[in-house]
């Protein structure tokens, strides 16, 4: 019961999605299942919120090291939730002005939009920007031109990096027109269009075959490892 019912739910739901792509009569079934999937995923956020609250409250109650940060996390979580669910500062939709709740949540003037603009965007984009330093530093330490493969990787990275900067244009700008293909900016484009395309295409084809095979194993009930508790039994 504990393993049989989930397996059949997965098989029925999966084949319904699969058939919806092939039979026009079942096309709407695929859309409905897709909507149900989105709703369950949205309800799953409640699970995430419960987990977040539990972990942080435990940290606070035990007075673990850095418990003050757990307080900040919870305050920010609750504050964002309140202003978002309450649509605080949001004006009604001009087409339905009689309904105060009809306005978009992400509009100019809404507190939720303020949080997005002045907290979420700066922090996430700066964190990604920070990766520039760490990637460069890791590459400097790890990349060694020891064999042909490593040399190819290094040289390509160097050409692509330089080819997309002004320095690259200046460095090889002196090359005559008949050798313009060797200019770094053109080399970079050629690498991206030819070698990168070929490599990526093979990777994508490999991934597609892998995903299709794994999905089929799940739909046929061969692979039950997703249920946990020890493999395919």
């Amino acid at each position, binding site marked *: 019961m504990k393993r049989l019912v989930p397996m059949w739910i997965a098989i029925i739901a999966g084949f319904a999605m699969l058939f919806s792509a092939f039979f026009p009569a079942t096309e709407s079934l695929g859309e409905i299942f897709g909507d149900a999937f989105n709703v369950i995923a949205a309800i799953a956020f409640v699970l995430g919120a419960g987990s977040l609250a539990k972990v942080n409250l435990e940290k606070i109650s035990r007075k673990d090291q850095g418990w003050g940060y757990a307080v900040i996390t919870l305050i920010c979580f609750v504050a964002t939730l309140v202003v978002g669910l309450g649509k605080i500062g949001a004006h009604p939709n001009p087409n339905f002005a009689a309904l105060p709740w009809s306005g978009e949540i992400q509009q100019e003037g809404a507190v939720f939009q303020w949080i997005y603009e002045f907290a979420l965007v700066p922090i996430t984009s700066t964190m990604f*920007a920070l*990766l520039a330093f760490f990637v460069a530093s890791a590459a400097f330490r790890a990349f060694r031109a020891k064999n042909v493969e490593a040399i190819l990787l290094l040289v390509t990275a160097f050409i692509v990096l330089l080819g997309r900067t002004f320095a690259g244009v200046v460095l090889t700008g002196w090359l005559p027109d008949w050798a313009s293909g060797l200019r770094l900016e053109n080399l970079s484009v050629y690498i991206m269009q030819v070698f990168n395309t070929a490599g990526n295409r093979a990777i994508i084809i490999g991934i597609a075959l892998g995903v299709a095979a794994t999905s089929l194993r799940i739909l046929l009930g061969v692979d039950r490892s997703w249920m946990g508790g020890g493999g395919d039994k």
Partner: protein
Amino acid sequence: MKLSRGWIVVSLVVAALIGVRAFTGGGMGRVYVKSEAVSIDVPADAAKGTAATKVEWTAWAQVPPRVYKAAEATNPAQTEVVFSWGRTIGLWIAAFFTLAIFSFLYRDNPAYRFTEAVIVGVSAAYAMVLGFWETVVPKLLGALTPDFVKGWVLPSLSDQGPAQVVAMCFALVLGVLLLMRLSPKGGWISMWPLAFIIGVTAGLKIVSHVESDLIAQSVATFKPLVAFKTDATGAVAAWPTVWASLANILVVAGVLCCLTYFFFSVEHKGLVGKGARVGIWYLMITFGAAFGFTVMGRVALLAARVEFLFDDWLWLIDPAGKRVVETMSMLTAW
């Protein structure tokens, strides 16, 4: 984490420099907004028994500082373009967050950990709020209680069919079962919604990956190995033809060699081994290009953050000409 004396000194120095900058020239880090009065007549609704009324509010749009200066110069008593406390505080908070994250380049510190705690809480709630307003309300509540949703938040909601209503009831039950994961004894039943999610994902992925990746990429690889290129007169151009043909040959050969490398059912010896080796070279070039591309993307983001600090916050540069007046006044002040 205890604040060391070094950090306190650095913070005080930075604060002092910002203070000096704030009172030099045209100042820094201020945001101005322009008001627009919105007034909408709401007709009477006989069905609901409501009388005709008028809904009014003021919308505020951000404007460059030069617009404020121009408006002030024209009429000092004007109230249309004004200083925005809310946005200015937001700008300073964003600047603090940006600097706090960058401070991690030196080492872990309280400012970074504070910002990290903020983003964990905010992003979790952000995803939850969007999930509620964009999925739960229109899809779930819209199907189960359409009249309530239409009269509350979405008057334009289209009527849902009975199949949709049944599916949403099903989704609600599965969603509630998913929450059983938090229960110590009923956790096993949360496997049912998980099974639904896995089944739907598997069914969707087979179709989408085979259609858009496997077939589309394979079809795109069938290129003519001799690609004729013509010039303006319509005659075959020799060198462009050679380069285009070479590019096609390299792409086809590269895909075949990489796939040979991925094929482990045959031992990589002889011709297969040589093909696989060429495939590895292609893959190394691909990884190198991906690395270069990723670094460039991150550097572009870094440039955007630095531009935010120097342009929007410190008002030290003005590439978009947002504060022509301030820049000039700062120069004359120096």
